């Protein structure tokens, strides 16, 4: 078998978690460093996988395939293409940063880091699985640590952490219940008994009737859409992030919800192109709901985490409208924007975490002038905020612009409404930055310490990616394009072929 960096990257946090089981719970330093070390390995390997990807060859690389349950056609198949690699890299960038963002956790440190590593491994697994069953398995693995982490290490503000954890989990489960039905329907309808398989590549080659595609895509769109906080199935997101501990907010907003967009494209659009085409206008409409509705609500928020929570819902609107455009440019933008939003929202949540840890409040009217005492945290927030409002030179400008171009070709009016979102975004972002970071020095914060040492890691890692990916966007866009172009080509070919046949066989 070939050396597969992605497989080892996936194993690293799992091995780390297993090691932690044998460490005495009072060895906090050791626990933290083991977690950091295992995520460091995973990060390095995913960087290597990203930059060693062979563009000439294209397709899935670093593949591993081990038959698992032959009777059901389940294979432990891993691999990565231009669509998975940015997501894999994102998972590890955020995962690595999340370890350091949790550096000061004193309560049940050992359990915390075990769960965090399992969570990261679960997310990573979904992005590198080539088998639908394995994909779903990893997705379900993610739910358990999230629930426990929110109710033990979370915080209660507007809603209690128990409510937040419950809401987050139930939403994830309801989404996944619809997904499960959809995926099983796919599995059963693709091939006759005996030839059935869960391999995504095989499912993508199967053909389905138009009516099946339409109802099955609706199931997937609901499942993946609610994970991506698609309007109006978004209300778990702000409460969930607010209740969750920093690391969970970072991972959830940063990468976990992107499984929704990833799955929608990789499984939904690719396997069920006619269904996607049928539902795309609805998704585009809901996407504008995301952008505008959540944007306006973010204006009315007073809790920092709720601002970023609603802002995250708003940004997912761009991802959705880009996907709904169903052309290369729009989908490229959507995928790149998932990466961009991941980096900046994780950075924002990390910085909010530091502010909360020191001031014990996230209530904006109680904060102010923090630029005086915590210039580094202020820099991080400024960077994340500027990226959020789509400033060129930072990671999200090129993806957003690409989405605008792609979605305008498909839905001109909706696209212009979505572009108007840049004004609302600026309005709430600038207000938060002004009210939290700037203004007169407040004496009550004078003894607060700025971040230093290992606490700097999230700022340095995520901030560097934010700037570098913004200045040199081709490193991101070429990779995304290598993954998206073949998918969109296949989809468009299938659509034109099937509409030529009169909409498929009834």
């Amino acid at each position, binding site marked *: 078998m070939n050396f597969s960096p992605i497989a080892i990257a996936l194993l690293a946090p799992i091995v780390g978690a297993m090691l932690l089981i044998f460490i005495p719970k009072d060895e906090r330093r050791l626990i933290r460093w083991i977690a950091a070390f295992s995520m460091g390995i995973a990060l390095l390997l995913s960087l290597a996988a990203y930059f060693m990807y062979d563009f000439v060859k294209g397709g899935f690389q670093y593949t591993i395939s081990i038959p698992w349950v032959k009777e059901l056609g389940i294979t432990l198949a891993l691999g990565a293409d231009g669509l998975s690699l940015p997501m894999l890299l994102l998972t590890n960038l955020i995962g690595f940063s999340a370890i350091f963002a949790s550096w000061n956790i004193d309560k049940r440190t050992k359990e915390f880091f075990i769960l965090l590593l399992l969570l990261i491994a679960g997310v990573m697994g979904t992005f590198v699985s080539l088998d639908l069953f394995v994909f779903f398995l990893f997705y379900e693995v993610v739910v358990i640590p999230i629930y426990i982490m929110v109710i033990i290490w979370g915080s209660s503000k507007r809603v209690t952490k128990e409510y937040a954890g419950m809401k987050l989990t139930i939403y994830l489960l309801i989404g996944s219940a619809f997904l499960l039905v959809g995926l099983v329907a796919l599995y059963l309808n693709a091939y006759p008994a005996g030839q059935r398989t869960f391999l995504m590549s095989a499912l993508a080659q199967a053909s389905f009737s138009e009516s099946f595609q339409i109802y099955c895509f609706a199931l997937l769109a609901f499942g993946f859409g609610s994970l991506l906080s698609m309007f109006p199935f978004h209300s778990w997101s702000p409460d969930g992030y607010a209740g969750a501990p920093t690391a969970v907010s970072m991972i959830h907003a940063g990468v976990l919800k992107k499984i929704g967009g990833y799955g929608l494209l990789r499984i939904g659009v690719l396997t069920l192109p006619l269904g996607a085409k049928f539902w795309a206008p609805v998704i585009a409409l809901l996407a504008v709901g995301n952008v505008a509705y959540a944007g306006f609500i973010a204006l009315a928020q007073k809790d920092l985490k709720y601002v970023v929570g609603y802002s995250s819902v708003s940004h997912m609107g761009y991802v959705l409208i880009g996907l709904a455009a169903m052309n290369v440019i729009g989908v490229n933008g959507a995928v790149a924007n998932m990466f961009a939003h991941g980096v900046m929202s994780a950075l924002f949540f990390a910085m909010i975490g530091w502010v909360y840890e020191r001031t014990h409040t996230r209530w904006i009217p109680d904060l102010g002038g923090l630029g005086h005492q915590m210039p580094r945290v202020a820099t991080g927030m400024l960077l994340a905020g500027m990226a959020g409002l789509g400033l060129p030179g930072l990671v999200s400008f090129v993806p957003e612009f690409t989405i605008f171009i792609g979605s305008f070709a498909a839905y001109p009016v909706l696209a212009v409404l979505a572009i108007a979102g840049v004004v609302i975004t600026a309005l709430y972002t600038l207000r938060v930055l002004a009210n939290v970071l700037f203004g007169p020095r407040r004496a009550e914060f004078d003894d607060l310490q700025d971040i230093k040492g290992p606490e700097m890691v999230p700022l340095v890692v995520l901030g560097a990616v934010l700037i570098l990916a913004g200045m040199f966007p081709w490193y991101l866009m070429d990779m995304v394009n290598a993954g998206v172009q073949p998918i969109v080509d296949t989809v468009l070919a299938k659509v034109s072929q099937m509409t030529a046949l009169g909409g*498929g066989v009834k």
Partner: protein
Amino acid sequence: MTDFVNFALYHAWLIPALPFLAFVLIVFGLRRHEKAAAATAISLTGISFLLALGVAGAVFSRPELVEKPLVYSARWFSMAGLSVEMGCLIDGTSAMMLFVVTLISTLVMIYSTGYMHGDEGFTRFFAYLSLFAASMLGLVIATNFLQLFVFWELVGLCSYLLIGYYYYKVSAREAAKKAFMTTRVGDFGLLVGIVLIQTFLGTMDFVELSGKLPAFAKEAPVLLTTIGFLVFIGPIGKSGQFPLHVWLPDAMEGPSPVSALIHAATMVVAGVYLVARAFTMFSVAPEAQHFVAYLGGFTAFFAASIALTQREMKRILAYSTISQLGYMIMALGVGSLTASMFHLMTHAYFKALMFLAAGSALHALHGKADIFEMGGLYRKMPWTAAFMVIGAIAIAGIPPFAGFWSKDEILVMTKLHGFTGLYYLASVTAFMTAFYMFRMVFTAFFGKENPENHPHESPVSMLVPMGVLAVLSVVGGLVGAPFVAKGFGYWVRYGAYHHPEFHADVAGISVLLALLGIALAWTIYGAKKVAAKDLAAKAGFLYTLSYNKYYIDELFQWINRVFADGTGKILYWVDLYIVDGIVNGLARLTAFAGERFRYVQNGQVQHYALVFFASVVFIILLSGLLGVTTAGVQSGGVAG
């Protein structure tokens, strides 16, 4: 020498890259070394200035560049159907801008070593200034709309950071926010315009566009006009045109060197420059172009009418900037790129000079801003006063000072191209300009001294840059004077070259009006023959309207509060009580159902069997009704 000129021409990307390098060096290494930081910023920007001179030399030695720009670029990102490059476009216009921006940046940086001396954020200030210079220069050499937009936003960021430089002041913080927000509204229009250009013309490249636009104008005139309007919304925000001018006076919260560099000489003219770059587009979209002309002319008049009654020195200068930007925009609208760019250049000299002189005065008075609390400053600050007077004469349009030539060119072109109404409006504006400028000069620098003030002349580091600008404010306009063969208009133009003509009537009237304005200011504020208060009382309503800036700020605040915040609050309520209400309601329903259904699970096997049987019957009936069988689904699936 030719080696250097050629090197500069083909390495023009170094001009923005060097100040950016200065920014990086200061942020990552020189944060605690004030002198080294300032030296790095000044020397690297200075080298950029030399390179800009080289580029200008290259254009002079190769006149064909004026009509056929030299373009070289590299891929930024691309995919099927969308390809974006970053590069350099060198022609007479961009060469002129490179010269002006590097020159003023370097001078302002030198001035700042004196002005910002002892400030705790000294290195931060130089880092931001360097980043600004880099972004502005990147904007100038842009080869396409998207590159221009990228740097357009970055200069906006620097403006935001520098307006909010004294971030502990609430007023500065709010002004920074307002500037970003207002220009954002303009950027939205510009962005939609760019998306339309890419979608319908298939390219964003300036040179390619100028080839495609004439044909496109015949095919889709309405669409092109729409694009023109949308693109122009950007400059309305950035270059402070009515009604998005409101941020610029507030931007004076930034340190004075920032006001001089960003909010007078360079960044605010980015909108003018954008229209100039997109001149091909506007010249084939006449409705959009006329709109540009009338909005510019109106803004020039409107802002001047506010400047008449303002009391803070830098605010008067800010409204004057808005007014002068209106002139530049109007010149583009009436179809003269040359006149607009010429005024842009001379305005950069004399307005930067006036802001630096104002900074020198405010520095000496520890931030006292009201001109009526100053008085007699010339005694203690002769150099500063002299510089301010030179700037005021230049802006008033007295020959042979720089402002005369460029303003005259604008007036001539407006009249010649048949915009008679605008010509009269612009002439009246010239009168008002002379009046309000000398109102400020006579009040602040002459007359009785205020005993509370203890002004002192500024250090040499501040006086020398002002001196350079003063010289340019006097002679800088001669390059475009009618008696110069192959002058400014030969190198910076659109279309064929027309030698500027001297129109004695236009020049005579404008000079006369300017002199009248100065005389009136002298009568009221110098000799005090007429009491200003009586005049204000007589003007009554008009005075109040002007002093309160026509209440446009209040209007915007109201819109913001009612529409943006109001919508936000309403939708939040909807989210909490309707969207989430349904979710929580469903959850409660489930809990309720669970409560009821637990009686179903009673452990009696015969009961379960009954339910099981009933369910099977129900499902069979249902599938019979809907005509669905497992086989049917499967065969359909395979065949499809």
